[in-house]
């Protein structure tokens, strides 16, 4: 083995290289790697959290949608009921109106008929009186027998 001064030179070089590596190479790289690892871990954790939040929000939205649907159905139900009620009321009102108008018309017709009958009776009475007058022109005093005639008219 030819060991010689090269050994000393290499030993010094070795020591210098290791010291340089220890001061200027290893710490920045090692720190950067660790910091990046932490950053990535944080990022992944944030993603997990966001996913959970999203699932929660979706659940909430689903619930709200269900509630809204139920509410809408209820409102429609109520509206239908109210519609039916209003329809019934309108029909009842219309019926009542009809009855009313009918009754009024009947009453009017009745009144007209009564009036016509009265007129007719009066005319018949007048006719009867006129006839009787012609027949009994002389024997019967109109004024003296007016009460009888009146009675006759009543009986018609």
């Amino acid at each position, binding site marked *: 083995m030819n060991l010689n001064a*090269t050994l000393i030179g290499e030993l010094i*070089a070795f020591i210098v290289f290791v010291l340089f590596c*220890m001061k200027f190479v*290893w710490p*920045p790289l*090692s720190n950067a790697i660790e910091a990046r690892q932490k950053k990535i871990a944080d990022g992944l954790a944030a993603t997990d959290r966001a996913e959970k939040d999203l699932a929660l929000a979706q659940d909430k939205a689903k619930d709200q949608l269900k509630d809204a649907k139920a509410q809408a159905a209820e409102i429609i139900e109520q509206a239908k009921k109210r519609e039916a009620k209003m329809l019934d009321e309108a029909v009842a009102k219309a019926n009542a109106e009809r009855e009313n108008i009918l009754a009024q018309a009947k009453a009017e017709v009745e009144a007209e008929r009564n009036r016509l009958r009265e007129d007719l009776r009066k005319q018949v009475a007048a006719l009867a009186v006129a006839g009787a007058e012609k027949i009994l022109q002389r024997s019967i005093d109109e004024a003296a027998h007016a009460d009888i005639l009146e009675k006759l008219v009543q009986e018609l």
Partner: protein
Amino acid sequence: MAAGEELTLSSHIQHHLTNAKMCTVDGSLAFNKACSEAGFWTWHIDTLAWSIGLGLLFLMLFRSAAKKASTGVPGKFQCFIEMIIEFVAANVKDTYHGKSKLIAPLALTIFVWVFLMNLMDLVPVDFLPAFAGWVGATFFGMDSHDVYMKIVPTTDINMTAALAIGVFLLMIGYSIRIKGVLGFVKELTLHPFSTKIVPLQIVLIPFNLLLELIALVAKPFSLALRLFGNLYAGEMIFILIGAIGLLQLPLHFVWAVFHILVIVLQAFVFMMLTIVYLSMASSDNH
């Protein structure tokens, strides 16, 4: 003729396995063969240049990524660098249970640096030495056979030994810091043979010390020699394959593909063993 061919082949291999040397002779710089008598104070300039160059490349790449590091979306280069960081950090976290700001950057430096140095093994063996020879002959008027260029620093025992010694010093430092000097001495002397009888324990101390010291010293030795041995052998086979002519192409391909595994594995093993040894050094329970 046959003898001459053999000579050129062995000198070719020898040339590939020789580092470019630098030393001072009589107060002035001398190179290569002039340094054969220089002894310890010889510098392998190719090993030094390639290893420091690759180390600077490593630091530049990672520093540029570190400057741009942010918590935003990383680019492809950023991702690649961070993958390596995460890989090293995971291994350190699994193995080393104490708190230390040093272990992870140390492991990263060892892993990437050793990997880059091993990676030079995949550059075809003759390319850069031939280029260096051409440069030497053209611009410096040297004989190109006198220009040496070994481009894989981890095939130089000095390189792997330096890494292992660095780790060894850290092991001792951690042992003393965590357990104290007394604790470290106790660990070396009171295990593996321990007894409650004091005189007997005193007799056992030398054996314990011997065993523990061997175990302790074996760690840097195994670190240095494993990496060196694997890469040296791999380089040697590349050189041999490179010397056999046209048939080298498929063989070189197969060995290179296999070597991709070896270079990553050796870098990983060196890093893991460093972490394990330092973890053992800083844990109290023996």
